[in-house]
Structure formats: structure tokens, C-alpha cells
């Protein structure tokens, strides 16, 4: 078995604040990330798939197929978007990187059957860099 990982950059803006908390409490928890007009990041998403390389092609997964799956399931929805305003999942969910990863994981899993009909899911893990200094894995 080999794990294949590709990195996909995307840019998005967000604001960290919970509708369940007061403005003051949001400010205490999220600091400048709660500034009302939001702010943005250059994110990088790493998508890993696992499997035995195909004996003919020598690839765990063709790069084009991996790119098309990630592009249509994730990047088209999230790149150059305001997460809170433009992505229904974040209407009530705070778009922290933890929650972004959980939403992206669900999107990729939901889109798998359409891109790889009849194949069991081979998603091995995700990693999200919010900045070069913060990263999250699931």
C-alpha cells in the first residue's frame, strides 16, 4: 500500500464568531478573528489517498482523477469565497479550520461515488494549513 498526497492551495475569507455567544464573549474567544468584516487566508489543503498502485500504471490513483474530484467537490465551492456568507454549512457552524476540515471531509466522501463508481473510498486523510504556521489534520 502506498499513500499518495497532493496539495491544493485556495484562498477564502471568514469571520470566527458564534451566533450562540455575545459579542463580548466572541471577542474573548476569537480575538481579532472575530472582527466584524472578516479577513482571509491562503489555505493549502492536502488530500491523501491510500491503495495498492495499479500494476500497469504504477499509480495509486491517476493524478487527473484526483484533481477533478478535489476540484469539483471542494475547490469550486470554497476558493475565493467568504465562508460564512457563501457556504451554507457555515451559516451556523463557525468556520474554524477544524470545522472547514470536517466539512471538506464530508464533501469529498459524498462526491466519491460519482467520481469513482463501484470503488470503495480510499481517502486516507486530510491536512489543512490555514497559514504557514498553523495546520490541522484529520
Amino acid at each position, binding site marked *: 500500500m502506498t499513500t499518495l498526497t497532493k496539495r491544493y492551495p485556495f484562498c477564502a475569507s471568514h469571520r470566527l464568531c458564534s451566533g450562540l455567544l455575545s459579542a463580548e464573549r466572541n471577542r474573548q474567544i476569537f480575538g481579532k478573528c472575530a472582527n466584524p468584516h472578516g479577513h482571509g487566508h491562503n489555505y493549502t489543503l492536502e488530500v491523501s489517498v491510500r491503495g495498492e498502485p495499479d500494476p500497469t*500504471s504504477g*499509480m495509486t490513483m491517476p*493524478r*487527473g482523477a484526483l484533481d477533478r474530484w478535489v476540484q469539483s467537490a471542494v475547490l469550486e465551492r470554497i476558493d475565493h469565497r467568504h465562508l460564512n456568507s457563501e457556504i451554507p454549512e457555515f451559516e451556523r457552524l463557525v468556520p474554524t479550520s477544524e470545522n472547514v476540515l470536517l466539512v471538506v471531509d464530508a464533501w469529498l466522501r459524498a462526491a466519491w461515488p460519482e467520481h469513482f463508481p463501484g470503488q470503495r473510498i480510499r481517502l486516507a486523510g486530510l491536512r489543512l494549513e490555514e497559514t504557514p504556521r498553523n495546520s490541522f489534520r484529520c
Partner: protein
Amino acid sequence: MLITRKAEFSASHVCSSPSLSAEENLRLFGAESRPHGHGHNYVVEVTVSGDVDAVHGMVLDLKDLKQVIRERVLDVYDHRFLNREVAPFERVVPTAENIAQDIWRRLDPAIDAMGASLHSVRLHESGELFVEYRGAAAG
């Protein structure tokens, strides 16, 4: 304890399979299938595992690991056209997956002989793609 040593080599390759048509190769491998080849600055991360020696406080001597990687990998791969100059890539497609497996085969016995175990070979083909192989036993 896990210890990782990183090394770089530059090499060219073509990814296409003789058992597929030119069209199928282009569809599967894209620009990687162009017949004259192209190159990458590969980065390989070799991770070994072992117990810390009670006397010298090390799993193994990193000098020895560096030398084994140089002799068994870099001297073979660096500044070569993989399909023409490095076995088994005259018959096996030199994808990142197959290169990582070949590096594993070249290093595994030597690292065993040093009293440690090879844990993983991570091969970066570019800044945006890497593969990791942990041996046939890892399943």
C-alpha cells in the same frame, strides 16, 4: 523512536506504459507522458525506527544512514534519466509510487544490517505531490 533523514536528487523520467496506447497514456499520465521526458527535484525522507542504545544514546549513527542513502539511492538516481539508466524502470513506469517502493527495496536490507528498521520512505516529486510507502508488511 523514529528518525528521519532527508536527501535530494534530480532526475528525469517519462510516465507511460508500453501496454497502453499513446492516447490512453496521455489520458492517464497527461504531460508526464511526453516522450522526451522531463525532470523533477525529488526529495526523499527516509524514516527508521529502533531502540535508543543505553550507552551511546542513539538509535543508529546518522553518518551511517547518510552514507547508505548516498550509496544506495543518490549515486544511483541523481542526474539520471530513470527510464534508461536505473533498473527496474526500463520496464516499470517510474511513478512516484514505484520510485518510493524501489528506494525501500534498496535501503531495507542495509538498515536492517545497521540494527534498525526502515519505517517509511516519503518521496516528494514536487512541492505539490508526495507519496509514502511503509513496506509490503504494512499492508
